[in-house]
């Protein structure tokens, strides 16, 4: 059986890729995708810990499902924001969006 640490290393790698995507990409959609990666890395962690530590309880899987639902909602809101942003400013490049400065 594959040891737990492999899963954790995989999840950490996935998270780091997602984080890199969020911080480094200019395209807002790509940032959104980075966020998805990070969420999924967390999910991997959750399910792995459930399987290796408390397989008799359902809590870990339920948690993962809730994260999916939140991620879906977040993408819906995020995409809606970007569409609206694109309509107004004709761009979705993250470094051109500095509305929070004001």
């Amino acid at each position, binding site marked *: 059986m594959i040891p737990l640490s492999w899963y954790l290393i995989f999840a950490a790698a996935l998270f780091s890729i997602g*984080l890199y995507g*969020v*911080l*480094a990409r200019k395209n807002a959609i790509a*940032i959104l995708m980075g966020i998805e990666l990070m969420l999924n890395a967390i999910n991997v962690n959750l399910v792995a810990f459930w399987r290796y530590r408390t397989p008799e309880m359902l809590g870990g899987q339920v948690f993962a499902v809730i994260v999916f639902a939140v991620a879906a909602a977040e993408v819906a809101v995020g995409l809606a924001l970007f569409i609206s942003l694109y309509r107004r400013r004709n761009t979705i490049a*993250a*470094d051109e*969006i*500095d*509305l*929070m*400065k*004001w």
Partner: protein
Amino acid sequence: MTTETLIWLIPLPPVLAFFIIVLFTNRSKALSHTLAVGAAFLSWLGSMVVFFRAIGTEHLGEHPFVSSIPWLATGDDYLWIGVQIDPLSAVTLFFVAWTVLMIFVYSVGYHNFGQPKGDHDRPGLQPHGATVADAHGHKHTVPSIEPMYSRFFAFIGLFAFGMYTLVVSDNLLTLFVGWEIMGLCSYLLIGFWYGKPSARAAMIKAFITTRVGDVFMLLGIAYLYTMTGTLNYREIFYNPEVLNYLVETPSYIAGLSAAAMIGILLFLGTIGKSAQWPLHVWLPDAMEGPTPVSAMIHAATMVSAGVYMVIRVFPLLSAGFENGQLTPPMLLMAFIGAFTALFSATIAVAQNDIKRVLAYSTISQLGFMIAALGVGGYVAATFHLVTHAFFKALLFLGSGSVIHGVEHGVLHTGDHHMDPQDMRNMGGLRHKMPVTFWTFTIGGLALAGFPLFTAGFWSKDEIFADAWAHAPIVLLVLGLAALLTAFYTSRQITMTFMGKPRTKEAEHAVESKWTMTVPLVILAVFAVAFGWVGIPHEFPVVGGIIPNWFHEFVGATLLEHPETLPFSWIPLLTSLVVSLFGLWLGWQVYKGFQVGSTDPVEKTLGATVYRWLKNKYYFDELYDKVFVKPAYWLAETFTSLWMDRKVIDGVLHWFAHISGIIGNFLRNAIDKPIVNGSADLIAESTKRLGAVFRTIQTGRVQQYMILALVSIAAFSALFYYLLVAAR
């Protein structure tokens, strides 16, 4: 109605008329004078009913009509005010009611009621006449109606209220109230033609001069109240215990008893009100007012009020008189009265203004009354008060009628520079104004004391008798004054009515209207007939035909009935001689008087003496130098310039300067560097900090996230080090 209720009501109609005229009927001249005259008539009616009930009452002196109400709570007691009619106030009420009513009626004619409005008359100035065209188209100038007609009637209504209040009052406090109301009204009425600067000056002079006396009188009243705890006449003046107490208590001034001190203070009030020397100066100037006012102030009411007051307090003034020695207040009164009588009679000789002669004669006659009281002639003073009120009201109204007639002449000729009051411009008016002539002559004879026939003779004779009995020197002075009185009266009548008209204006004078002449006739009757009620019993020939009612009646006001004096020829002869000789002399000297010629008195006495007389011994100038100028100096130089602007303002400016220095120091040393500095420091450092931190607020999410990541890493490392590695 009971007599007491009626007495309460007597003063009310004129004051109601005053308020109604002022508030409502001001615009209607006819309504206003109807109200005022109607009110005077009601008061007259009430006074007559009260008077006749009073003389029909036995022992009125011991049991006068009294009625009073508690008015002012003073601790555990009340100050009572009320009304009282005793014999003295009854006779005063009698002459006040008659003269007031006559003056009210006369005023209607005097102020030209029924005449058209003036062409260019303005309120505050005498009417100048109006131009009217008759049926043939000829233009005439006729007298015009007084512009402030209603106002005049309102004021004299208030004046009458003051006098009635004073007369019916039963205590010194309400007497003082009436006294001051009259003071106010005389001020308003003397300055009735306030457009004239001289009238304004006269009104202020009258008000302030009488005020001097009033202050002393108020002091006297306060002192009396302190000593006795009451101001009621009967409780003080009809009460031997109180009088004895006052005589035996020494006052603050050594040598004077409390009674004498109070008496002198009260008498000083009379000096002001009755225009005695040295406060006589206001009365001649008061002639600036309309003539009915002169009659009102100088005959019927105000100056009489002063004498009435001293007669009223006579028991106090004379307390201690029983041993035959004149008390200090009486001595003072005898001196002031006699001196004033002679002093102002000499001035009257040299006056040419018809009203001024009468003004000085009023002062002189009031001096007679005061002197009479000073020698203990209580009844004589009262008698002369009454007769004088009648004949002096008559003379003033008569002079008003003369002036009116001459003003008519002025309107005819159109020469407005002529003084219609100057007797030198008159002459020969007896044919033009017969009613005025006869009534004026009767009044003049009464003033001069024409023997047997006139009221003035009997009252003056009684004063002489009292003076002879108690202080012969006073008789000498008064006799001289009476001689001068007869002389100037005769001079006045001669210059005004006798001979030929000396000017065109006098030629065109006309008799006044009936509203003016009827009061003259009625007053003339009293000026003759009122003397008959006081003829002494022992008088040769005519004595005893009519009982000496006046003496019996008025004498009863006193605690001890004054005894009638034994008859003596000396005062009688004095009286006869001075009056007849004076009249004859005046007639002889002035019958040939021509306009523009030197006054015969000036020829006889020399220019210097005449100038002194004509200028009233320069008393006005003296007072101007001694009181008015220093007062101005005090106000303008001392108070305003030195005290106010230099001392007070100086101190204030100094304070301001010092405060400025302290303020500057505080500002520069504390406020600016410390308070402002610290506040600025906080603000500036916040600003700089903000400037630093704003550079990291780029608004870009990704940079924020990098910052968050770095921070988390750093903090994690820190916590790791602190919690794990350092353990």
